[in-house]
């Protein structure tokens, strides 16, 4: 026993080193492990909020129909009734936020239709497709079809209400 205690200096040093190392490890853990890590899994819980915080570009159909219920009535029963407004009118979350300041651009009455309806053999059979030259001699589609209800023809020439153009 006396022999062992004679060399206790070594044991004390070793013990202190071990304690110091453990302490350093614990402090490093507290500093380096990000907040919320491990709350749901091996990742930072705050990353979920980061992903959620992105702003919207597309307002969504419900937001459009809040104000433009007349259009959804006009579309009822047509083949186009199920299409989201922003499929043709593009992303309009800014317009939905501030309808006075941000005005949408009226889609071009031919190219917007041909995005879907131009003939292509890879398209499913039964989907209405046209060769624009043969079908309408390059006339705008809304000469004969109401875009919101394509089975109907416009009673009068398409109204030419001026729409502010914004880029």
């Amino acid at each position: 026993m006396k022999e062992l205690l004679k060399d206790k200096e070594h044991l004390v040093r070793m013990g202190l080193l071990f304690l110091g190392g453990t302490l350093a490890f614990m402090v490093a853990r507290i500093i380096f492990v990000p907040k919320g890590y491990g709350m749901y899994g091996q990742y930072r819980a705050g990353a979920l909020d980061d992903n959620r915080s992105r702003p919207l570009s597309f307002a969504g159909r419900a937001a459009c129909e809040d104000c433009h219920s007349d259009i959804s009535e006009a579309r009822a029963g047509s083949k186009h009734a199920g299409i989201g407004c922003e499929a043709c009118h593009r992303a309009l979350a800014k317009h939905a936020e501030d309808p006075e300041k941000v005005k949408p651009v009226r889609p071009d009455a031919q190219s917007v239709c041909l995005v879907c309806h131009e003939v292509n053999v890879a398209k499913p059979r039964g989907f209405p497709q046209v060769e624009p030259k043969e079908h309408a001699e390059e006339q705008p589609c809304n000469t004969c079809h109401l875009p919101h209800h394509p089975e109907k023809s416009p009673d009068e020439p398409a109204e030419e209400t001026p729409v502010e153009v914004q880029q």
Partner: protein
Amino acid sequence: MTSTRREFLVRTGKYLLLTPAAAAAIDNILAGNAATAPAYDMSDHWWGMAIDIEKCIGCGNCVRACKVENDVPVEGPYFRTWVERYHVSYQEPGGEAERITVDSPEGGYNGFPEKYREGDGAKSFFVPKLCNQCSHSPCTQVCPVGATFESPDGAVLVDKAYCMGCRYCVQACPYGCRFIDPRTETVDKCSLCYHRITRGLTTACCEVCPTGARSLGDFKNPKDPIHDFVRLNNVQVLKPQMATGSKTYYSGLDGSVR
């Protein structure tokens, strides 16, 4: 760091005794923020996607909308979702074996200029692609820093603050759904429009799909039409042999699609 000795001892004690995960959970429960927001409860949802190949017309609306909604670079090979055109000609007696040609000009961003002709003895069709939101995703398993993960509601997300751009996940994804954003040098991928679906909206691609070829589904909502979609159609996931637990279900998928 300002903390009393007592706080310090309690905290280190907790970290020593419990696993870090359990300690963090206790911290959050004590702080009263177990769910990140009261209006949206992650445990009530399990998101997936239903894609009907027979409805896809290759218009590219989804590709364009995705780039706008998620600020994806327009130029270059950067896509969170894209559309492929398959062209499959079949084996002639004694002739060439099944021949599959796939093209995706600019990911379908500008639609698909006609390239094939009617009656060439082949079939062609469009296949929209996006992150499959795997429930056992290979990409999250290889991330060395915990910067990509499966959220409790079934979306595979990226923590951009911790991604160091090592590209392991880009290589690990069997569907090629990840890319490195050249502006930040961090990885990016379809987040299933997490910022939209957690606000009660559908994804940007589903919002603008004119034929309903894609639809977002919540498997934990018993009234969601995705249950009928999966039950009433012959559905497949991509690369089922890899057991990724993909939650993107394709109806009418041809065997040639990989």
